[in-house]
């Protein structure tokens, strides 16, 4: 199977300031790829470009072998159905309960009967490990960890092949963060998902990812499994992974 995402020669500029210059990246089928890098390295911007929220200044992004630049809006929408996104703050719609949040993509994109839509949405909430009575709760009534789980459930609504996670464990207590890590691994195993996650959380990156792309100097400095990346001698990477936190996270493996 081809790489679900292929980025080549990517250039992103804000006015005269460029944050990506000739960036290339390939995501393999069925892997969990982490994207890490310092603040301002353009991780979130890269994510936004891959999920079609922003157009790069130049370069080519292919999703499932199709060049985004050459697709019509209709074809882009078809691609959107094949991917799910969890945003950093969850971005659940505050006017709807969790069940309706999960059912929204299903109501929008499929012609399933209302009963089936509800059943599928409930299944998704159960798959991410939310209790049964959470379905009728509103986003403001639940904790941060549950919020992230619900956001994953909504991202999974259409059974995407690709899942994007923006800082899945940021702002969570260690127990909830641990739960999210396990959830990502479970989803990868059970549903065969390809996952791209932007994260700073070293513990989580060690635990969950198959490979990590390290962003710096406007490009991808290295793509490798964490253990290999930790041996990389590039100063930006050693600062990240061999500082006290990096060593600690590694020691815990």
């Amino acid at each position, binding site marked *: 199977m081809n790489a679900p995402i292929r980025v080549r020669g990517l250039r992103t500029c804000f006015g005269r300031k460029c944050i990506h210059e000739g960036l290339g990246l390939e995501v393999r089928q069925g892997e969990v790829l982490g994207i890490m890098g310092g603040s301002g390295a353009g991780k979130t911007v890269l994510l936004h470009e891959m999920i079609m929220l922003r157009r790069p200044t130049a370069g080519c992004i292919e999703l499932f072998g199709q060049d985004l630049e050459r697709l019509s809006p209709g074809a882009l929408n078809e691609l959107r159905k094949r991917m799910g996104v969890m945003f950093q703050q969850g971005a659940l719609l505050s006017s709807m309960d969790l069940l309706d949040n999960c059912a929204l993509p299903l109501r929008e994109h499929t012609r399933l009967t209302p009963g*089936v839509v509800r059943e*599928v949405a409930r*299944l998704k909430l*159960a*798959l991410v490990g939310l209790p049964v009575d959470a*379905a009728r709760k509103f986003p*403001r009534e639940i904790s941060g960890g549950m919020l992230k789980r619900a956001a994953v459930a909504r991202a999974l609504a*259409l059974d995407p092949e690709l899942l994007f996670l923006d800082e899945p464990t940021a702002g969570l207590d260690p127990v909830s963060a641990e739960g999210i890590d396990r959830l990502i691994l479970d989803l990868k195993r*059970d549903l065969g998902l390809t996952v791209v996650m932007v994260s700073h959380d070293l513990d989580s990156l060690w635990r969950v990812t198959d490979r990590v792309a390290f962003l710096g100097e406007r490009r991808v400095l290295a793509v490798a499994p964490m253990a290999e990346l930790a041996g990389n001698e590039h100063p930006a990477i050693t600062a990240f992974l061999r500082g006290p936190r990096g060593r600690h996270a590694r020691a815990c493996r």
Partner: protein
Amino acid sequence: MQGQAGIDYIPAEDRLVLSGGWDTCRLDGLDRRLEALQAELPASGAMRVDGARLERLDTAGALLLQRFLDGCRGRGLDCRLEGLSETHRGLLELVRRRCPREPLERAPVEPALAALGRSVWTGVGEFGHLLGFLGQLTGRLAATLIHPGRFRARAFLKELYAGGVAALPIVGLLSLLIGVVVAYQGAVQLRRYGADIFIVDLVTLSSVRELAPLIAAIIVAGRTGSAYAAQIGTMVVTEEVNALRTIGIPPMDLLVLPKLLALFLALPLLTLFADLASVLGGMFMAEALLDIDPRVFVERIPQAVSERSYLLGLSKAPVFAGIIAVVGCFQGFRVAGGADAVGRRTTVAVVHSIFLVILTDGLFSVLFSWLGI
């Protein structure tokens, strides 16, 4: 290209054949098909379910299949799956384990009487909060009067610009149009009686005493009152208001007082501007329809509008300003939750302030006629 999800019953072989892509986007109609099939199948015996021709299966498809199998088994039909690929079998097993069995609780619907009671009770509570807000505001106002150095002059000037200067074009334009409309309606009637010159009285008196203050206040309520509620509401949601409190800045000082005082100054000035614009509009129409020379029109104004009427009209403006600023800021602080609540409170702010402005205007009319002025 994969086909629509399908299921075929072959009675001769006691076999069900699954085909096509059982995924979220191609499942439509399958639900009903499965239900119909349930009725067709024998109630006992054995049935082989052949999944070898299944092209794709995702959780939604697995859910429907699992529900169907459960249904068959519940009726005593022994279903055996065969030919299913390893991944499909795994997915089906996952869904079987995780699918919630408890019936979904309905979204709670309140009986009408309870809803009525709740809304009344909420209203009473809101009124209590409003009183609390007014009390706090008065306290901070007094504190600022005692220590004028603490007054946020920069914020005040910014609000004065946003709520006053920036509103000049729209207030001017609408007032001009109101003047034109009133003059036009009046001219048609007055001409019949040959009382042309009284168009001046009609236009200027109605503008200066009633219409201009009201128009200015309604525009400001829609424009600025809503902005106050949305701004403060968003700041509450993003915890900026809490940040101010912990830094030791009372949010009232930074967010409410400058707005209130700026509007106290801006709305009377806007009203003055609205007076001018609507009289100007009337004057144009008087010349166009009744051939009244603008000079004659201007000379007549002092006879038509007494100084007292003029001041009475202008005196309403600070009261309206107070209503708009207090209601807007209060609703902003009452936001709890997210984007949804900000929208709701902003709507309430505009509706309440326009309602209160018109109500107060009515009360002023009663009061003035009672006092004989």
